[in-house]
Every structure is written in C-alpha cells, then in structure tokens.
C-alpha cells in the first residue's frame, strides 16, 4: 500500500516526470511482439489494477501508453508486451536486459475486479487484446476461489501470432479454466478451431446474469463480439471492454484520447457496454 501512495504522490507533485524502470528480462514472443519485464527504482511495486496502463518514456523519442500485462499479485516487477508498429516501439524493441526506460503511472481505471468477485468470467481476447487481459487472467488465477467458472476465448490471425504460447498451454491444462483458441488462417500444425472469434461465442455455456464478459481486441472485433454476447443475454453493465486511444499525457489534459466528453486515459480505458451505449457516435467499438 505504501508503494501505491508513493506513486500517487509522484503523479500529484511531478506528473510529467517518469521514474526509472530497469528492463530485467526481454524476449521476442513472435516476429512482431516483444515482452519486457521491468523493475522500478527501489523495487517498488507498481500496485496497479489489472487493465491499467503506464506511459513508457524513451528520452529522445517521447512517450507511449502501454498496457500492463502482469497482475498486481506478481510482485517486484511488472510486464509489458509491445508490438513494433512505429518509431517509438521500434526503438523500444531495440532495448534489452539492463536498459533503462522511464515509467509514469499506473493510469486509468482497470477491470472492475471487485464487482466481478463471485461471478463467472468469460474472457474474449482478439489479437493483441490478450496483452491487457493477461493481467486479469493472472489475477484471477492467483485469486481463483474468489471467482466462479472461468472461460477464455482467444482469437488471432495465424498460429504464429498467438502470444504467451507456453502460458496458454498451462492455462489449458488447468482444470478450473476452460479455454478455446481459434485462428483466421491455419497452418498444417494447427489442430484447433479455424474462423473468427465470434464463431466461438454461440457455443459457450453460460448463465448470463451470473457472468461478466471481458472483451479486448481491435475496434472492429468489439462490434461483432458484443452483438453475440447480447444475444446470450448478458446484461450491458456486465460486458466489459478496454478502449485503445492515442494518449500523450495520461492525465486527462492533452485531449488526444477523448471520446465525446470522456477522457479514456482517466475514465477508462476500461468501460462497460452501458457506458459505451451512451456515446452518440464517436465510439468505433460500439455495436451498431
């Protein structure tokens, strides 16, 4: 708890100054995604909620918002997984063990874990969506007896793009979790499902009033997945999403992440579907 107060005090007094974060482990997960394990100066715990994000600084290359993919129950470090898509992430990919990055945060509102206690959980991850969801999955595993049945659906374009391969295998082996994977395009070694992630939802067995569905993926995926979840009669406020937006400050000031009147960096990135529904037309993730 003390760590959390240190971090909150930092945001209050010097909100733009990053802390020192040391990369203690770095490895490529796929061709495009790299995994980083980071230790903060003084080994203080990031004390985040699953679903929150940090602003990662590389001096000379400014900052980018990155989802935290470890659980707060993983102590002493936190994990990030980053796809190489631009100037900043390309530079980040060139860093390795022992290198230093700047860290501000954690920012935003994470998954509503307190509300989710006692409920069944259906996790739907599309593509990079598994990255922020890994923080939730790991949290649930560390508190398994607090939650009901847990089902995980993972979808990605090809088997090569599947992230956290070893870990997902382990999740599959666990008896208290049901897991299902699908790929858009298979290769000869693939023995799982083929097709979009939406095809997996009609088959899941849930009691809608007792289920929280947590969905993270590209904008277009939300639109179709949410329709399927609504068909299953899951209440709007029990459908949880996380929105990706451009962010430059994390403090609800710079304006880039705004969806209508809402700053995603402060009021999100996690929202429920009844919040999404109240947007008039600027929210790409909302089912039409």
């Amino acid at each position, binding site marked *: 708890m003390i760590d959390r107060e240190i971090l909150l005090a930092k945001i209050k007094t010097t*909100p733009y100054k990053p802390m020192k974060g040391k990369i203690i482990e770095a490895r490529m997960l796929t061709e495009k995604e790299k995994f980083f394990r980071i230790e903060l100066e003084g080994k203080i715990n990031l004390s985040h909620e699953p679903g929150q994000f940090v602003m990662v600084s590389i001096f000379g290359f400014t900052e980018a918002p990155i989802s935290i993919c470890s659980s707060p129950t993983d102590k002493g470090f936190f994990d990030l997984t980053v796809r190489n898509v631009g100037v900043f992430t390309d530079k980040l990919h060139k860093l390795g063990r022992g290198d230093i990055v*700047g860290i501000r945060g954690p920012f935003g509102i994470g998954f509503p874990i307190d509300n989710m206690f006692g409920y069944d959980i259906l996790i739907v991850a599309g593509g990079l969506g598994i990255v922020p969801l890994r923080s939730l999955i790991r949290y649930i595993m560390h508190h398994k007896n607090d939650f009901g049945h847990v089902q995980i659906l993972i979808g990605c374009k090809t088997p090569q793009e599947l992230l956290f391969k070893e870990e997902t295998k382990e999740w599959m082996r666990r008896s208290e979790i049901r897991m299902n994977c699908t790929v858009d395009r298979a290769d000869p070694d693939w023995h799982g499902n083929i097709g979009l992630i939406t095809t997996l939802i009609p088959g899941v067995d849930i009691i809608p009033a007792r289920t929280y569905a947590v969905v993270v993926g*590209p904008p277009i995926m939300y639109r179709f997945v949410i329709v399927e979840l609504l068909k299953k009669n899951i209440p709007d406020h029990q459908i949880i999403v996380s929105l990706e937006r451009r962010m430059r400050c994390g403090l609800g000031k*710079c304006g880039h992440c705004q969806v209508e009147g809402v700053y995603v960096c402060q009021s999100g990135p996690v929202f429920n579907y009844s919040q999404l529904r109240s947007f008039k037309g600027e929210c790409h993730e909302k089912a039409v």
Partner: protein
Amino acid sequence: MKYAVIKKEDLNKWVEHLKKTARLYAPKKKENQFIFRPIKDVNEITLKYIPTILPPKKYYYPQKEKLFRFKIKPFKTAKAIKAFEEYILFAVHTCDIAGIQCMDVIFREGPEDPNYLNRKDKMTIIGIECLEYCDKYANCTSMGNHVPRGGYDLMMVDLGEKFILHINSEKGERLVHGLAYIKEADEKDMLNLERVREAKKKVFKEEFNASLIKVYETFDKHFASKVWQDVGRRCVACGNCTNVCPTCYCFDVMDEMELSLNQGMRYRIWNSCQMDDFAKVAGGEDFRKGRDGRQRHRYYRKFKYPVDKFNRYFCTGCGRCTRTCMAQISLVETVNSLLAEEGELR
C-alpha cells in the same frame, strides 16, 4: 475600498508604477491587428482594441513549455524551470478573463497541472470592460461575457474623464494602495458606472437566435446534423481556430536533444484536434477521421461536454475562431444553423 477612480491623465503614471512591480503584458497594435506584448514604453499600449491575434493564454499556457530536463546515461531527470516570475496582464477583455477561468477549471481538476498552477499563481489580471462591440464576429453577449463576471484582480471601466476600478482581490488592492492619484470612488462615480452599464444594454444584444440553454439542448439533439457535414466540407483542417481559442488546451509532447545526444528537454506544445492525425493510434485506426467529425468535436467541446462536466461553457464569445478562419466558418452562423434545424424539426 471596493471601487477606486483614476483620472485618464494619470493613467500612464500608474502603468509606469505597475511596470516596476512586475513584468507587464498589454495589448498593442501590430499592423492592422493587436497583440499582447511585454511593454517597454507605456505609450505603446492601446486600450481600444479588438481581440488580440492570440489570447493572453500564451503567457500562462505557453505554446512550447518545458516540462523537464533529462539525461539518458545515466538516467536522470531534473526541473526545467527554476522560478516563475510575477506578471501583470493589463487591459484584458472580459471574454479573455472568462477564458482564464475555463483554463483554471481544467488544470485544477485532478491530477492537477503544476506548470499551469505555478504560472497562474504569479498572475495579476487587470481587466477592461468593453463599452461597444469590437467587431461583428463576437458573440460575447450570448455567452454572458460582455460584462465582468469575476476572475480578475482589478477591472477598469471608462467613465469619460476617468476610469473607475473595481478592486476584486488583495493583489489588486495592493496595486492601487497608497497612490495619491488613485482615490476612492464617490457616489457620483458609482452612479456613472450604473449609467454606463445601462447604456451598454442598448448596444449588446444576444447574437444567437435563442438562449444559451436552448443552444445546449440543441447540441444535445443534433449530433448527427448535416450542419456538421457542411462545416466539414468547408474546413481546411489548418487548426487556426483552436490555436487562437482562449479555452483550447490540447497539447502534444516532444523531446529535443542537445548536440551531445545524451541530454535534452521534454516539452509540451499546443496541438489541435483539427489535425488529421490527432486521434490516430499507432496501429493505424483513426478515431476521428473526417473534418466534419473533428469540427463537431471542437464545437461540442465548447457548448456541450464542459457544460455536462463543469456547468461551464467553453466558448467565451471572443470571436477569434471566426475572425481567423481561412474558410469563413462562422461560429455564430453554425450555432444559428443548428438552432434553425431544431426549429424546423419542431
């Protein structure tokens, strides 16, 4: 002393005095327009001016502001600004004071912004009340900002041979205290002030075709209006409207390296929601792609979202966005077109 008076012939003497107490910024002429500048010679100051090209926001929210210094190896950050200096904004219109009040709300909301708050802390505002319209572009009456509504230390009103000064803070009182040529206002001065305000009512008329409440309700209902398509078609996405707006505060963050390539400075610089890539994420998805959506966003950030959040309109009525627009997009016309559409619908 709540109200004081100063004779016009003593004004320069007083401004000289102000100049000695703190850095003084005031409006002066630049070709056919006006700008706020640091004042060396008090004769440069113009009290009769149409809104300056940029609002005084450039002094309390600089276009390019230092956030901190950094060193890459070894990793280190340090304060970029050692001390903030006291300054006086002189002869600020009531619309621009309303703009400062809006900025206060934004930067005070947690997490607070220390850079802004430090600058604001050092600011003294001496306003001047307009007795006639600056030009046809202003919509201050509809916004209720044609008259003073607080937010200043001193407010000057022209009473003909003298100015009456409303003293609105201790800071303001210190600037008029102990000066032989500034006297307490008497009953006659107060009566004159009332008369001036009364005369203003005949000059200043609401520019929108409906009350502000109605304007808000219309925005609430007309998100999908074709008015936005029309504005979007004309807009050239230059971002002038947001740069000159006293309540626009969006920014981007940039790093500048020194020649050593080991140390540098992180800045924030003004950015505009009208820019093409403003809401585009690294993966390529652009969350506000069209100029129509971006212009609509700008208007909603003046007439809808901040009203929901802070019960405050973020249009001050200064008219700068209309005055500066290369495509002649007029704020008053846009709002009135929406109101007309609402009328047709009803």
